[in-house]
């Protein structure tokens, strides 16, 4: 199993933010809100995504969640816009 990443790298934060904006209706108005680690909005969207894909629902960015976000996919959101 992949070693746990030391800390979520900067670019991971961008991957997460873009993913949640594209597919989970995260409203950010261009601000980097994923950096605000305790952003409840981000936590809630992360939980929705983890639930959809049958991952462990933590609301935190872990290796499995990141790995899944990096997979090629359809551009249509997973939740109704």
């Amino acid at each position, binding site marked *: 199993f992949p070693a746990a990443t030391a800390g979520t790298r900067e670019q991971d934060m961008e991957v997460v933010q873009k993913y949640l904006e594209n597919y989970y209706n995260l409203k950010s108005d261009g601000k980097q809100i994923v950096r605000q680690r305790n952003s409840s909005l981000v936590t809630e969207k992360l939980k929705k995504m983890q639930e959809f894909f*049958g991952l462990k629902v933590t609301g935190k960015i872990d290796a499995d969640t990141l790995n899944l976000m990096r997979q090629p996919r*359809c551009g249509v959101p997973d939740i109704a816009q």
Partner: protein
Amino acid sequence: YVLTDRTLRWEHTHLTYRIENYTPDLPRADVDSAIEKAFQLWSNVSPLTFTKVLRGQADIMISFVRGDHYDNSPFDGPDGNLAHAFPPGPNLGGDAHFDEDERWTKNYRNYNLYRVAAHELGHSLGLSHSTDIGALMYPNYMYDGHVQLSQDDINAIQAIYGPSPNPVQPTGPQTPQVCDSNLIFDLITTFRGEVMFFKDRFYMRLNPFYPEVELNFISTFWPNLPSGLQAAYEFAERDEVRFFKGGKYWAVQGQEMLYGYPKDIYRSFGFPKAVKNIDAAVSDEETGKTYFFVANKYWRYDEYNQSMDAGYPRMIAADFPGIGRKVDAAFQKYGFFYIIRGTTQYKFDLQTKRILSIDRANSWFSC
């Protein structure tokens, strides 16, 4: 599958489509064929029909575009977002856009156009994403050589448009439910300390890091293994797992398929030609003896001498009392054999030839 309370649908069932432009990655005929086959998947299971038009406005307009193409959903360059489609409606409604920054193929290389089109046209007809990993409407790109509607996809489209007019209602494969008490595994093997369970096109794997059982396509790890595998065992000494189907077998080391396979079981192990397939196999790490279960008999093979032990085959009932006649799967863990028949698992002590406990075959998944 998901139907929202605002699920949009076409009010007429005879729809038109038009391919506005073509990707340079494939001959036009291959693009036409991929799109046509993708529509056929959906028309086969519903009252919908699709007619291709060459000019003017069609219900479903198909195009290959890149970057920002002015539909408020820009593409993102290679990989990532591959394509998108809009739910039924006028103008942009129903249209499907494919990202021209991807390489479109008609084989297993990324990305298979037929596979992606089958998914996107589901959206064009009103479907949302499915959480069922075996469904075409699952959001992530997965291609194991088959493009077929799962039962989940069929249920979804029929929930919107009703059943197919075909006298025989088509059905699709169901994704195994790990806690289904009627789940019968095709094969089970240990794998570098883990236990992997196989059913149809899927593996299930216990993840030591958290309770969720990992379920995914076998092709995720071994794209060249055939479907319909029947048995497997791990020869830990050589870090190999051998998969059996019919009279042939394949060997893998981690995710690598070993070279020179498939080989045949007759020449490699010395089975008589009367043996058409192996039902189950398990190798005893202590002795290097591998047990092959075939119908109501079993053979024992010596991995070190690389020959079948004399005096075999023997009756399963004689040496595995209480387990019955036929075995579906078998593996070794913690020094014991776990022999599976149907939905029942027997924990068996090879030394004392006694059953130590009886469980459900999926009891490992702590349902």
